[in-house]
């Protein structure tokens, strides 16, 4: 077992939940999602995000629209779909359960 690999895997598994959470209230364009994730140390390299967004879009949890930008190329604004919201609420519940039980275990063992 190697700790950094495990950490990367943990982060990886939670990343999809985080993206959905970021988009829960309003639509954002990919750089805003990127910035939030980076600020919270969830992302190491930017390139990781795009396959994830595409995967979420292909599973119809997200959809996007194009918007012109004053400086730079047109931007993709992502927003969460109805299916995505259902998915998110289910994920949130299981995340809470998971984090509670893991935290309890951590506390007990320490």
């Amino acid at each position: 077992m190697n700790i950094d690999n495990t950490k990367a895997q943990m982060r990886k598994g939670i990343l999809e939940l985080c993206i959905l959470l970021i988009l829960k209230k309003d639509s954002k364009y990919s750089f805003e999602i990127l910035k939030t994730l980076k600020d919270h140390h969830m992302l190491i390299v930017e390139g990781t995000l795009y396959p994830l967004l595409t995967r979420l879009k292909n599973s119809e949890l997200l959809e996007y629209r194009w918007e012109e930008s004053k400086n730079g190329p047109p931007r993709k604004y992502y927003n969460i779909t109805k299916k995505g919201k259902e998915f998110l609420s289910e994920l949130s519940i299981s995340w809470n359960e998971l984090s509670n039980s893991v935290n309890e275990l951590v506390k007990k063992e320490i």
Partner: protein
Amino acid sequence: MNKTININLAQINFSLDEKGYLKLKSYLKELDNLFDSTSGKEDIIEDIESRIAELFSQFKKFDDYVISEKEVESVIQTMGSVEDLSDDEILNKNSSSKSSRKFFRDPDDYWIGGIAGGISKYYNLNSAWVRIILLILLIFGVPFTILIYVLFWVFTPEAKTTLDKIKMKGESVNINSIKNKIKEGYEEFSSSVEYDENKIINSISVFFKSIIKAFIKIIPFILKAVAYFVGILLFIISLFGIIGSIFGFLLTAFFTDIPFSLTMFGVGLEGILIFCFCVFTLGIPLFFLFNLSLILISRNPKIMLNTFSTFILLGFWVFSIILLIFMITLGVLDMDLMNYNSVFKLLIK
């Protein structure tokens, strides 16, 4: 003079210098290969391209600005190298493939520069063994080993990021990334062959800085090694000294023929006391040495005797010496002439 190449990324026009263009082109091609079997590949590439365009726009200070090779490199670094992304892709697909490692200096496991730590991660060994082997090599070929160590230090990057550390301990690899690595290595090699005065001067100064840094870091290491060596020496001396003095006094106690042997004083209380005082006189200083050796070996000053016990032992030592002298003087005065004569004869012989 450099050639400029115009490209169109996400419907925006950019001018790149030739080297930068080649870098970007091969990067995008590698990404294309990487996501080949991923659904929605076009979307991913499109997203990445438009993000690159965004990053390029930030560099563009004026309309005719030409984006340099360095700027392309920094953008690729932000996006993540193909290896970085392929790790994620492979993680996503849960495919298990053979792992290969990249050699880094380990900043978490080091004595001097983390080379031994890096080697141990690379070959999956315990770093203590690697250090022992290095020390043995050092004994057999001092200048050679030091030179190789310094070269490794200068040319091996430190594992700074998490991804570096993942790679250091083993990364998933496919044919693509091996191919890329070989290509990268070749490109680095060929570009380093190109004569570039600044580069050479720069690398020389980095080299000497590293050597000086190495020596500064080596000094405490040498001191540690010397302390360890002295510690072991003292350990052996004091241990054998203590055991030797006990056995020595015991043996002389049983051989009556030896001059000034303890039996001169009889086997009674007097004899036993003399025996004990002799052992203390020699044994207490040896015990202090023993303690010192343990401190040196374990490098833990906490195991030092506290002042209280030190003074007790010192007091006991002085007391033993005084009493020993006192008793011997008494004993000699008490000895009858016959006994004295026989001792005298033995001495003359």
